[in-house]
């Protein structure tokens, strides 16, 4: 190789420039960026559908869309956001980028597989977008049979295949992450020195490995039934549509933990860094991630309380659903205890982390209402459910994703964004979010059903509040896109460790070398060896 002396330090961003060097890269950091691009696109696509839904619901009459178009709108919103934003956001974007850095590895265990995952994901997304362009789907993101297999005249087949394909990206990522965390840790990086984000990713990978194949086979059965007329869920033959619901939620409930566990890991990192303290009860937080992953597989039938399951199994599933609150509460209390007497540093990632704590708390507690059998009968398929899962999936997962994105952005790009604008965005999202979904709890409690494009006039005030909140939320989500893009060109140099954080990812330069570290790091202490004095100097 010719000896070339660069003025600029070599980074993963500038050591190769061609388009092919991006599309054929095996570098986990570049693959993380590729995911970031697709996920961001999907996020804005899903956001457009959400905007249209809130516009329609600003008035009681159905003046913008017909019922049929409205059905397609909320379905496409759900499909895009769940399968192409929430599931991949933190693990595939941030996890891919920082996980090997955090454990001191040069790359994930299977870099080619990692690239394949992205292609599989993107192909699945293209299928789904194609189905939307061809007219969309109207089954709801849950694809319940027999409507999806027989009744619907929309593009169920194409969307089903798209989501089926995307599932394999999740499976491959899960396998890759588990092997990487098992086998690729740097010398001295014992399990209990791992950052809590890694524990969260490991638990997530476990859910991906055990859960995703089940949704894959379920969607395959649906596709076979719809496309080739096999009769597996067909009630005319004596098949059981509720079986579909069981199989669907066997994945899709744990999938909620795929969405929320990695952001929880991000929050552990951010709270430790910006309060300059070791995470209170490290091992409890670590094991609560695993506990959530395991319990998560035992609660699926709480989505079926009104589907005609036996009261005895309903009782057990109700109890187990309450049990999930325990590891979640362990985390929340431990984060709060970490803040106690910490030297709180008020930066953008910390703002998002605080937002996460508040919204996740509300989302989690309202989940308990839905886990109780009696109340659930009243609240099923109302806006209460919609509000609850948005508090978890958007309030929790997206807040955590944004916290992570703001936390690692200097590492990813080597540039600082505008901190004031960042704080403003966090505030806008927090206020806008509560204004959007807070009223929906009341609407649901009063009995407004979800998935209708018209509603009685007495619900209008709360719906207008909700739509108004959504517009604030939209500004809050567009703002980071602007200042992030601005920072790429004009942002100040971040330096290797702008937050004075611990953790191996901050020991290498920003943006990192193509091979992450010049020499393989050796770890001698726990993940959060912060001292308050160091903070005061900073």
């Amino acid at each position, binding site marked *: 190789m010719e000896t070339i002396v660069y003025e600029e330090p070599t980074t993963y961003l500038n050591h190769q420039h061609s388009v092919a060097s991006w599309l054929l890269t095996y570098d986990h950091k570049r693959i993380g960026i590729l995911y970031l691009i697709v996920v961001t696109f999907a996020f804005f696509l899903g956001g457009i559908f959400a905007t249209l839904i809130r516009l329609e619901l600003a008035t009681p009459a159905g003046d913008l869309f017909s019922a049929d178009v409205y059905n397609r709108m909320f379905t496409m919103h759900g499909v895009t956001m769940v399968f192409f934003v929430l599931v991949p956001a933190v693990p595939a974007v941030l996890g891919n980028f920082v996980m090997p850095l955090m454990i001191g590895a040069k790359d994930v265990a299977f870099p080619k597989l990692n690239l394949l995952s992205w292609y599989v994901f993107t192909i699945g997304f293209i299928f789904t977008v194609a189905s939307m362009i061809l007219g969309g789907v109207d089954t709801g993101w849950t694809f319940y049979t027999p409507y999806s297999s027989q009744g619907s005249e929309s593009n169920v087949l194409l969307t089903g295949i798209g989501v089926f394909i995307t599932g394999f990206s999740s499976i491959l990522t899960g396998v890759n992450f588990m092997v990487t965390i098992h086998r690729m840790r740097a010398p001295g990086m014992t399990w209990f020195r791992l950052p809590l984000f890694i524990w969260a990713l490991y638990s997530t990978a476990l859910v991906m490995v055990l859960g995703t*194949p089940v949704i894959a086979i379920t969607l395959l059965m649906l596709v076979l039934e719809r496309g080739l007329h096999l009769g*597996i869920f067909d009630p005319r033959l004596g098949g059981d549509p509720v079986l579909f619901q069981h199989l669907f939620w*066997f994945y899709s409930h744990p999938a909620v933990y795929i969405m929320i566990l990695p952001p929880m890991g991000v929050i552990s990192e951010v709270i430790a860094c910006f309060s300059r303290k070791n995470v209170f009860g490290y091992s409890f937080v670590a094991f609560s991630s695993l506990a959530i992953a395991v319990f998560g597989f035992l609660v699926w039938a709480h989505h079926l309380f009104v589907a005609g399951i036996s009261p005895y199994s309903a009782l057990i599933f109700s109890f187990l659903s309450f049990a999930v609150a325990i590891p979640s509460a362990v985390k929340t209390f431990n984060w709060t205890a970490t803040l106690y007497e910490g030297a709180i540093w008020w930066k953008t990632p910390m703002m998002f982390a605080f937002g996460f704590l508040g919204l996740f708390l509300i989302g989690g507690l309202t989940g308990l209402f839905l886990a109780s059998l009696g109340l659930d009968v009243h609240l099923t398929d109302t806006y209460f459910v919609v509000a609850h899962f948005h508090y978890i999936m958007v309030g929790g997962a997206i807040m955590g994703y944004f916290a992570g994105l703001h936390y690692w952005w200097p590492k990813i790009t080597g540039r600082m964004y505008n901190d004031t604008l960042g704080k403003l965005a966090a505030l806008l999202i927090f206020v806008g979010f509560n204004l959007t979904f807070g009223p929906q709890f009341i609407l649901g409690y009063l009995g407004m059903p979800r998935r209708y494009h018209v509603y009685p006039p007495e619900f209008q005030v709360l719906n207008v509040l909700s739509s108004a909140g959504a517009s604030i939320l939209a500004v809050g989500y567009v703002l980071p896109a602007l200042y992030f893009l601005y920072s790429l060109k004009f942002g100040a140099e971040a330096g290797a460790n702008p937050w004075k954080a611990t953790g191996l990812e901050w020991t290498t330069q920003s943006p990192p070398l193509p091979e992450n570290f010049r020499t393989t790091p050796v770890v001698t202490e726990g993940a959060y060896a912060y001292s308050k004095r160091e903070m005061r100097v900073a």
Partner: protein
Amino acid sequence: MPNGTIAAHDEHHGQHHPRLQHHFQDLEQQHEASTLGMWLFLVTEVMFFGGLILAYTLYRIWYPTAWALGSEELNIYLGGFNTAVLIGSSLTMALAVRSAQTGAQRATVGWLLFTIALGLTFLVVKFFEYKEKFERFHVPGPNFRFEGPESPHVQIFFSLYFALTGVHALHMIIGVGLMSVITVMAYRKRFSPEWYTPVELGGLYWHFVDIVWIFLFPLLYLVDRSHHIVSELSGGAGDRGLQGDARRPVLHAHQVRQQPDEAGRRHRLLLPGDHADADVVRLSVARMVYGAARIDIARFDHQPDAEVAPCSVAACSRLLDPPVCL
């Protein structure tokens, strides 16, 4: 890249094994990672087939008669032959891995080719089985035909038959593809006793697909075959229908009807105390004691006068759940 790093890296390259990827420390770490990855992938495969087998289990509990009827339509000889073929292919695969381990390169190629041949044999036989199903209108859909009241449930059986064996056959096709690539690699002498990971991982995959079939064969082909054994032991021989003494017909699955709404859900245990009920269908005492089986009395309602061949004690004690062991 600063000079020092490149030089160090090149120097490093000079020493290590050509098959060692740069992000691993040594071949051992690479091998462990690959093996763990393959096992995890197989776990996902278990979950994948698990979903289908769950559906199978549920409907088999609900519709035991239909399952017996459907299973009788399958060709047990072709299925059995294919089972033998696959078990044989697992042996040749294991021998291929062994040859790769010991560095016997030509033997590796030979065993891999043998494995591919057996895999293709399986697929060809499967093709003829599918063809037969098409010809006899046993493919689910608008053209499905099956005589008798159990027809809809039998259609579910065949739906699951095609889903399970279809997904399995797809895995076989992928397996044959993988094996072909590995064979080419072996032919080009890529493997050595230090590095033969693809052969080993390909072998893991192949054995897994084999084991899936070992489950599918009894689940699909052998459901309720047991009652043939009973028939033979109780004097009956040959095909279904009238067996042994013509005055005492043996009731077979297709002659017995379940009440549609209660299909399979109202089993109750038949015990010696049930004499009075049992008298109606004239079951022998031996069956009641040893059968202790979940026999749905309601099924016999439409043929109260049918005489039933008494089973021998030995025969009935073999069965714990004979839907129609009569």
